[in-house]
């Protein structure tokens, strides 16, 4: 097995994540002319509405205070934008939870279908693609902004069932994208090829030993084919070695055996966020969605001392102060995850560019409802951190019943994709939301 170790050259010694920040910088030498920083966007989703009093800043403009739920964003306040008054005006089939998530990024009606919500008519999938996919397609069309995956659709404990409540991202009308929930699956997607090579490197010695052993037992005529075979294995060895030399991106390590269950939600969230960070840093993708559970999500945040399911709590009346406190805690927890990610980006220098990664990555946090117990689609939470879409940072906006389609258009425009409308044109009349 010593031999196995010696050959194990692809299992590089320093594959911990700490080596990564230096790796991306190598590209700087390869592409000297690229002055413009990359633009990235990650859209976070958490369910069941928020507690407005503990969420929306009282003030409008640049001088504003973050309320309790948004407090974790304090370190990034000067890069934070809060949009109040943006409403999901899309109507049609489906209940508000369904339309809340299904029309959130698509801005267009759901098809009639057979999924029956708690009220309204039954519905199917959204009848158009979502803004993350629209922008991803735009970036992938251009050589300069094209990346390996374009986008990643990630989830944390999204239930294993495909229905209107569990899907946010759509590649086209009637084509929802299943988010990757499993960090190991995500790892395989990001690093599968590199991992394969590492595995192959580790078995070369025993395979060559076997070829020798077989060859020694054969007559001259039969030995020829084994000699030829040995040549191919040697070729593979050379190829793997060359690849190792040119390999400037190492794999992160993943804690093995974490099961997807409610108790592990915090752990899985961090694993997913860390992998997403690696992927953005390696420029595997520029766009991502990140979906905590689902519309009507039932997470039980026992680690916060909350035994009830999230959705169940969100139905409690405002007079139930205990429930309201719990909802604040739950939403604050989601906000902490976003703050964790923001911090991670902020601490990472922009590979091949200026500043840090947060400067060039817009984080958007949103929700299917404005408020859980009223099921309103008005005042949909939209909180943004970081990014370089040309928006004025560090600002609290108060709009008056403004259609959220306009925000979706503004996102595309921020990427230089100047579409006139997105989703249902009815709600696009006044053009992109002005955020300067």
């Amino acid at each position, binding site marked *: *097995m010593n031999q*196995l*170790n010696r050959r194990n050259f692809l299992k590089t010694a320093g594959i911990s994540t700490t080596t990564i920040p230096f790796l991306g910088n190598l590209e700087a030498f390869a592409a000297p002319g690229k002055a413009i920083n990359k633009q990235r966007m990650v859209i976070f989703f958490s369910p069941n509405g928020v507690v407005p009093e503990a969420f929306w800043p009282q003030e409008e403009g640049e001088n504003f205070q973050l309320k309790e739920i948004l407090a974790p964003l304090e370190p990034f306040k000067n890069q934070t934008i809060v949009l109040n008054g943006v409403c999901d005006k899309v109507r049609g089939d489906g209940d508000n939870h369904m339309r809340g998530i299904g029309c959130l990024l698509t801005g267009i009606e*759901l*098809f*009639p*279908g*057979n*999924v*029956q*919500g*708690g009220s309204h008519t*039954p*519905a*199917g*999938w959204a*009848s158009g693609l979502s803004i993350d996919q629209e922008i991803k397609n735009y970036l992938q069309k251009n050589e300069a902004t094209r990346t390996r995956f374009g986008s990643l659709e990630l989830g944390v404990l999204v239930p294993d069932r*495909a*229905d*209107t*409540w569990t899907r946010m991202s759509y590649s086209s*009308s*009637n084509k929802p994208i299943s988010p990757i929930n499993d960090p190991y699956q995500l790892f395989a997607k990001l690093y599968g090829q590199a991992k*394969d090579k590492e*595995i*192959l490197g*580790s*078995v070369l010695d*025993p*395979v060559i030993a*076997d*070829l020798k*052993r*077989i060859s020694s*037992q*054969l007559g001259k*005529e*039969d030995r020829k*084919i*084994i000699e*030829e*075979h040995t040549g*191919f*294995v040697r*070729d*593979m060895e050379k190829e793997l070695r060359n690849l190792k030399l040119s390999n400037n991106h190492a794999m992160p390590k993943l804690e*093995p*055996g974490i*099961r997807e269950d409610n108790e592990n939600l915090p752990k899985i969230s961090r694993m997913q966020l860390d992998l997403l960070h690696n992927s953005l840093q390696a420029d595997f993708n520029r766009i991502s969605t990140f979906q905590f559970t689902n519309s009507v999500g039932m997470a039980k945040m026992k680690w916060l001392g909350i035994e009830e399911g999230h959705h169940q709590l969100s139905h409690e009346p405002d007079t139930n102060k205990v429930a309201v406190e719990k909802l604040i805690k739950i939403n604050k927890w989601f906000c902490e995850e976003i703050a964790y990610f923001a911090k991670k980006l902020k601490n990472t220098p922009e590979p091949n560019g200026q500043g840090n990664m947060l400067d060039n990555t817009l984080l958007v946090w949103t929700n299917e409802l404005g408020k859980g117990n009223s099921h309103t689609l008005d005042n949909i939470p939209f909180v943004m951190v970081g990014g370089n879409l040309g928006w004025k940072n560090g600002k609290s906006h108060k709009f008056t019943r403004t259609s959220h389609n306009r925000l979706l258009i503004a996102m595309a425009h921020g990427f230089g994709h100047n579409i006139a409308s997105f989703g249902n044109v009815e709600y696009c009349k006044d053009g992109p939301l002005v955020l300067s």
Partner: protein
Amino acid sequence: MKFKYLYLYLLSNLSASLLFGYLLLLVLPTFVLAQSEGKKIYDAKCLACHGAKGEGVKGKYKKLLSGDLTPNQLAKVIEETMPKDEPGSINATSSLAIAKYIHEDFYSSIARERNRPARVELSRLTVKQYRNTLMDLVGSFREKANSQEKSKGIKGEYFKARNLNKGDLVETHVDAEIDFDFKIEGPIVGKTEPHDFSIRWAGAIFAPETGYYEFTVQSSHSIRLWVNDAANPLIDAWVKSGKDTEFKGSLYLIAGRYYSLKLDFTKAKQGVNDNKKPKEVQPAFVKLLWKKPSGPLEICPSEYLTSNTFPEMFICSSPFPPDDGSLGWERGVTISKEWDQATTTGALEAAKYISKKLNEFTKTREGDAQRVEKTIEFLKKFAMRAFGRNLENDETALINKVMLEFKEPQEAAIRVIVWVLKSPQFLYRHEGGGDFIASQLSYTLWDSIPDQQLWDAETSGKLKNPELLRREIDRMLLDSRAKEKIRGFFHDLLLLNHTSELNKDAKRFPDFNPLLESDLKLSLDKSLDEIFWNKESNFQKLFLEDSVFMNQRIAKFYNQKLDAKTGFEKMNLDAGKRAGIVTHPYMISMLSYAAESSPIHRGVFLARSIVGVTLKPPPEAVAPLAQSLHPSLTTRERVIMQTKAGVCMTCHGTINSLGFTLEHFDAVGKLRTQDNSKPIDTSGSYVSRDGKKVSFDGARNLALFLASNRDTHRAFTEHLFHHLLKQPTRAYGPETLEQLTDYFEKNSLNMAKLASEIARLGSQKVVAQPQKLTKQPLQSP
């Protein structure tokens, strides 16, 4: 026909590779060797000193006559120096004749290679064997599929509410196919409400060929389809959205196996249970269709559906380069870089599959204190079964060390499995050397590894006892893998593997469509299955069977009346006028042009595949005479006109006189009495290898001749031998073929018995002591 020109000698439907194989066949020694002028002179003047084949003569000239001179150079040497006692006595012409003869016969390196005695060569697994082996190797750690008689059709459970709950079950019955239009009323009036019912069909589906299958479900309502993988649906259209009513999913399947299949259907709404009866009930339909790797979109036929249950199978779908088929059967005697890379992809595919489900295979779970030990145990067994022998000490040590180093069982497993599957000890088979009888038998009859029972028979020494060996072979012949191997043999023999879509003249045969073609192929398979697996397994029945399996579509096309709505029934067709499988409508259609019959295609097929004649390619490629250019001639007259030249007739003499006998069948296999408004001449003949000329008239007489002729018996024996053992018969001794043919004839031409005898013979070829590596006796893996 797709091509503008069709060459007379080339079966229009055959691929280039077959043609290639056909050409290569010519380098094999043919049974009639012309006595050349050169040989006569050599034998008279040179043989005394050089021996009959230039091998040398003791005391005269000992050295082997071999080298790199060209015939002209050789001629010069002979003319100037030979014979030793009288140089110059052989003139230039004679010298050249001698030179040409010895160069061709034994002097040149090519001739030496050709004369090398045939031997059992070290072979890698063929692609088919590789895929089967991986499937069975992984499957050996799972519950066994039940091998009982498969029922046709699929079990349907009908529920009176939306969620397929046991409590709502109102009826269970077997449906032949899934092809339903429930209209508004629903499936079982009185038991199910029109707006609120659900159905689950569960069973398995048989894959008749290897490749990607596209499944399609057409439905007005919610459906989910699982194939092989019970955890992840192949098609998930449980959410009904918009107007889509057709849903597709593709999956690679390996031929000859059943795969679990489940289709759920619900008419009710999802989500919140709000199943108030709506004002207006919509009609409902559901259909399960597929597109086989070759073939049209069709309703999954009841023939391939069963209600029996099957465990999940591991399907290796990594693409492989095709095997060497140059001798007419697939062999694993050559390797290439592409092949090596494919084995890497295959190894990774299998290793990932297993490591993902490691707990299932090792019968353990997360947190089990024994998990590491159980994993090591599993990996050792896996390696033993893959190598077909005990593990060496260093191999066991390697597994232990990998586990120690990587700790996490999945990480260790993935590496050990990749090693095992990349090892030549897994990838090669060594019939002549290291393999056990068990392995020899299983690859001969199953193209796969032995099962537990066979290993047990090996370790207990049963396979050394002739009687018990026979019994074991007979058991193996009952296995579905043996059935698949025999089906593959017939497909090779009847050239079915080389056939793409049969395009027929739409004006003359408007009803001959891909659906009919697919049914005909299945009908032919059913005939072959029935004849071979019948107790008598009578070879003669291949030619004398009068009936054809028909379903509604076939019956309608061939003007027969069939009562059964679905499925196939055996029906007489033109009793006494056909020649069994030779005139099966599919075979005849394949051996025809789009609008006209083709005596040449038919003749070449009969000559090569059935009677075993070696044919040379024609001296030049010729396009067939168009019927329109000779409107007054019959097909027979046109063929005679075109092939009358002497140079053509050396082969067409044989080809035409066999092919003409089937002229009573048109381009789609229907019986006819006239061709081009003229009476048909179906007289023909054949000169046997023993020099006797036999004449016959029409398909029936041809069939009687084929059924009882030694040449056809020998040809069948040789084809079957090649297909089963994938080695030349001569490698097992010069008399092997004749002896096996004798055996075949003495045993009432029982094909299954012949297969059994070939398997027995192959298993006796273990020359070296197997398991040189291991001192201890073989443990049952």
